[in-house]
């Protein structure tokens, strides 16, 4: 009964839980407090992996949308849609945890002059448009095509936006990974890497879970339609007989 997306879901879920437990243990019992920011730097181990995985999810959804447009296979549209959906949920977490960090570090919940914050908000709001666009179209074929075009264009915008922010070179927002990838000390770097792997595993698990549920719901809908059609045909045959 399990479709292709439901396969190995249990192992993904168990692996994600184990990796999350490992990441949290490293964050609170292994990684030292940051010399500059102190204990609040621990927020970064949840905030930054969520941001990286969410942005990666948006780009991945764009790639899936390209596959949908090239092959016409609607399963790629479903994958793209669910990937965007989970990325938006993580995006909500990024914005809230970022605001909490900003309040603790800068004394303000939001700083409009900071390009990293504002650019992430722009990306987030851009993807919020995806839902009204998708669900304003009733025809499934057109819905899939238009959503895919949006996902491709918006997915291409994400790395461009990231590069533009890097070029802006504001030093207010701390850089977790420098261009050489070496700005974190050893214990903090290991913790950060485990946190990113754990967040990625959680993301894949949630995407697989939601695709499995949506596929099951669609199969039930199709089955119900077939049963209703069969019942109508039987009734007409009885009337004719």
């Amino acid at each position, binding site marked *: 009964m399990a479709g292709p997306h439901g396969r190995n879901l249990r192992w993904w879920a168990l692996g994600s839980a184990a990796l999350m437990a490992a990441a*949290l243990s490293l964050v609170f019992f292994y990684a030292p407090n940051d010399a500059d920011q102190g204990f*609040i730097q621990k927020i970064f181990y949840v905030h930054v992996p969520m941001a990286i995985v969410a942005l990666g999810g948006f780009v991945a959804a764009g790639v899936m949308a390209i596959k949908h447009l090239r092959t016409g296979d609607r399963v790629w549209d479903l994958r793209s849609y669910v990937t965007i959906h989970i990325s938006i949920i993580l995006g909500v*977490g990024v914005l809230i945890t970022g605001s909490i960090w900003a309040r*603790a*570090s800068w004394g303000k919940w939001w700083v409009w002059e900071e390009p990293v914050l504002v650019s992430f908000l722009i990306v987030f709001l851009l993807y919020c448009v995806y839902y009204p666009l998708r669900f304003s179209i009733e025809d499934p074929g057109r819905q899939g095509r238009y959503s895919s075009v949006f996902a491709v264009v918006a997915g291409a915008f994400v790395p461009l936006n990231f590069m533009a922010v890097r070029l802006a070179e504001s030093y207010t927002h701390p850089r977790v990974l420098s261009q050489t990838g070496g700005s974190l000390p050893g214990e903090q770097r290991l913790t950060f890497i485990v946190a990113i792997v754990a967040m990625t595993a959680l993301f894949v698990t949630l995407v697989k879970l939601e695709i499995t*549920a949506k596929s099951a*719901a669609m199969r039930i809908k199709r089955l119900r339609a077939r049963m209703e059609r069969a019942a109508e045909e039987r009734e007409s045959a009885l009337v004719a007989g």
Partner: protein
Amino acid sequence: MPALPLDEAGRYVAGAYGVFVTLILVYVAIMGAKLQRIDNDLAELERLAGED
């Protein structure tokens, strides 16, 4: 800005991790409700198939 004392910083850290856990729990609860609906639909289909 100097680093916040542990008791004050702890509240912010707990808040941030609490937000993450809450998001995941809310998502899982919503998915649980969806699965319940799917289960109900399946039960109804089984009943219809039994009537045939």
